[in-house]
């Protein structure tokens, strides 16, 4: 086994300190070392976006980041979306608008949508489509995902979050 590095990060608000090989991908670190399996792996070429997480407020494909690069970082995954036990308006929106089918792309989609709405709380349909264009979905044809993001945008504007 290769040498292990101690990685200290804040994930979904919680401080964690876990050792990992320096070549370990962030997605494997999150899934297997930290036990948060909501973040998925759908490809090996950084195309699909199923592994999207927030790192220091920006979306990254965690299959293309080494865990050691996240040392000292703040990470948010799908598990960090609800606050105080309530679903985030985006999570509600995906359910209300049937924005998911098999659910495999959903965590990455949610994180990309979350980042989009942080930057642009009231996006147009075209802006939503570009905002989630780094995330592939094989089931929904995206139309209801767009509606789900619009649902959340509206709800958040009304003070939902």
């Amino acid at each position, binding site marked *: *086994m*290769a040498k292990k590095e101690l990685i200290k990060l804040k994930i979904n608000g919680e401080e964690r300190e876990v050792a990992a*090989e320096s*070549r*370990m991908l962030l997605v*494997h670190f999150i*899934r*297997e070392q930290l*036990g*948060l*399996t*909501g*973040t*998925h*792996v*759908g*490809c*090996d*070429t950084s*195309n*699909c976006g*199923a592994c999207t997480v927030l790192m220091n407020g920006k979306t990254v494909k965690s299959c293309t980041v080494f865990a050691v690069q996240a040392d000292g970082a703040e990470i948010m*995954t*799908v*598990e960090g*979306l*609800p606050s105080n036990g309530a*679903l985030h308006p985006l*999570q509600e929106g*995906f*359910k*209300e608008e*049937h924005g*998911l*089918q*098999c*659910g*495999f*792309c*959903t*965590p990455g989609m*949610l994180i990309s949508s979350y980042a989009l709405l942080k930057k642009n709380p009231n996006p147009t349909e075209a802006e*939503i*489509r*570009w905002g*989630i*264009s*780094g*995330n*592939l*979905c*094989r*089931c*929904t*044809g*995206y*139309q*209801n*995902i*767009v509606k789900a993001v619009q649902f959340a945008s509206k709800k958040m504007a009304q003070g939902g979050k």
Partner: protein
Amino acid sequence: MHKTSAEISGMGHSMKRKEDGRFIQGKGNYVDDVILPHMVYAQMVRSPYAHARIKSINTDAAKKVPGVLAIITGEDLAKANLAWMPTLSYDKQMVLATGKVLFQAQEVAFVVAEDRYAAADAAELVEVDYEELPVLVDPHKAMDADAPLLREDRTEKNNKIFHWEVGDKAATDKAFKEAAVISKVNALSPRCHPAPLETCGCVADFNKATEKLTVWLTSQAPHAHRTVFALVGGIPEQNIRIIAPDIGGGFGNKVPVYPGYVCAVVASLTLGRPVKWIETRSENLQSTGFARDYHMTAEVAADKDGKVKAMRVKTLADHGAFNAAAQPTKFPAGLFSICTGSYEFPNAFCEVDGVYTNKAPGGIAYRCSFRVTEAAYLIERVMDVLADDLKMDPVELRQKNFIPAAKFPYKSPLGWTYDSGDYHAAMKLALDTVGYDALLKEQAEKRKKGELMGIGISSFTEIVGAGPAHTFDILGIKMFDSAEIRIHPTGKAICRMGTKSQGQGHETTYAQIVAQELGIPAKDVQVEEGDTDTAPYGLGTYASRSTPTSGAATAMAARKIREKAKKIAAFLLEASEEDLEWEPGKFFVKGAPSKAKTIQEIAFAAYTNIPPGLEAGLEAVNYYDPPNLTFPFGTYIAVVDIDKGTGEIKVRRFVAVDDCGNIINPMIVEGQIHGGLTEGFAIAFMQEIGYDESGNVQGGTFMDYLIPTAVETPHWETGKTTTPSPHHPFGAKGVGESPTVGSPGAFVNAVVDALSHLGVKHIEMPITPWKVWNILKEKGITG
């Protein structure tokens, strides 16, 4: 059909999905999420060559990698008689290569290590000495005298798999001789891949103490897979438990048994530890079940007014290195003989030749009821060619030849009995929605200005829901399916089915069927699938068969429960059964609606106040063998604009009118249509698993096998007509595959229509801007 209250949410309610809660919170449980104590990881070693003799395999260096536990080769498997396994099409397939490899990325060795990084390191160090052999890539050359022989294991020393034909050849040939007009098209349905976002994989866990093997498997057909494992591995079937947990999309990709599964089981049997094997995306695209690769020719004979007289189809099917087609075993070309489509052909003849090539084995039914996508594309394409030859509007030609609504059930010349249809109604709704006449005017004006705009029609007929058992089986197992319902004392329920959702929303729709039939609110009905230790046996979910088979079984089992509930209600109400009436949720005495017992009260009595002579409990199971297939249909219309300078195609509008009979959940049906249309769009414009002349895969990653993003994907407009299936218990037909089956024809017809005034008759899929730009260049339209 009685419309239930929103509280009950039976048929026809757009109930929000019960399964969504866990998925939106990152709490789904997919195979790769299964992490067991002492679990180890596996990595496949694959062939870099398409055809090569294996001279030797040296694992010495690989074994020295720290953490490596086992390296399995074909020779090792051969000792246990496991080097080969049967396919679902009466062929066999190498689990790990022995002697030679037959396609690039073929499985050669299986490395197991303490973690996935060590397994990958060791796989790199497995040294295989290959001697390259001549490669056969072009299926048209497979039967040439000088073609290399691929399958030396077979008695037949050629590359032919099968010849299959159906229909009246003599009558068809005669009709062609007498025809005023003959139109013809050569059309390729290119090799593509379902590429569900979750790849295939498993965790195999053999417990040496109990001798029980548990396999978490990305499976669309867990029960059938258990039987295959029992037959191949010689493990007693009661000692095998397959669990298909949450499945991240299937689309046909997760129907076959793959070598990685068998190797993981062997490794777990050997090591006595759980073994996880999850393929990468590249491995998924390069080695698991591809779809299509049908090289088709269709001819249609017609009179001068466009009334069709006969259809003749000749097809070459490229199945790759092993015939691993996942389809009803007696149907080597699946249900391709639905190729006469929605039209009243007096005569037809169809023949298909299957051949081996040095490509990945298959082919599976990618969101398609076994070669129906190929058939629908072919008939919809050739009808447009005929319209163009006759200078007739393709809508008029279709309307003239539709099987009239009054002629159902309709017996097709190739042997299918269509259950019901009203093709004119669906066509009319689609035309009205899209504004066809206005579009024709706009197109004429644009042409005058030299602008390129096209309208494409596809009026497809699907054939789904296999059974019936007298016709369909897989390896002898009849294609029925099942449901088991148990009502708890408090009136809540659990049901289990032989199917397996991969995103279709079964946990919601099956619950709605129970709600409709028994009046128990759908939210109180728990649906479980995928665990072979608990669910009744069934053939699984593909071919749009879940609603036609297990959906029907659910209704039938619920009706059995209702029969017993009636007896209990009569006892409780001190009335005779004949005096009772039912409405979803309760039995009441005719003429005295206040004298009633709810299903919840009846359920409680079934455990607490059992009528004399009745068994306790309230449950039922049904194995449903459908009397016929169902035939969903629809009309799709695509409107495209083409950029003359770049060849770029913009789908401006797409109207999809579907008729899938009675609908359980309109929201879910619409979602299925959106998704299927997007896959059809990808097939028409973006996707092909190509091979170079050495047999190297050209579409082996998501960098070159393109999945549409939200940006390219058009906006979908949907509509419906409702023509119930006359033989299904609640008149449903199945819908998941209609959009993938019906849409490629509409897209291609639209692009060809945009260019038809330039003399373009056909363009092969995928229609890329590069292809269109070259045509425009050739026609002198662009510089």
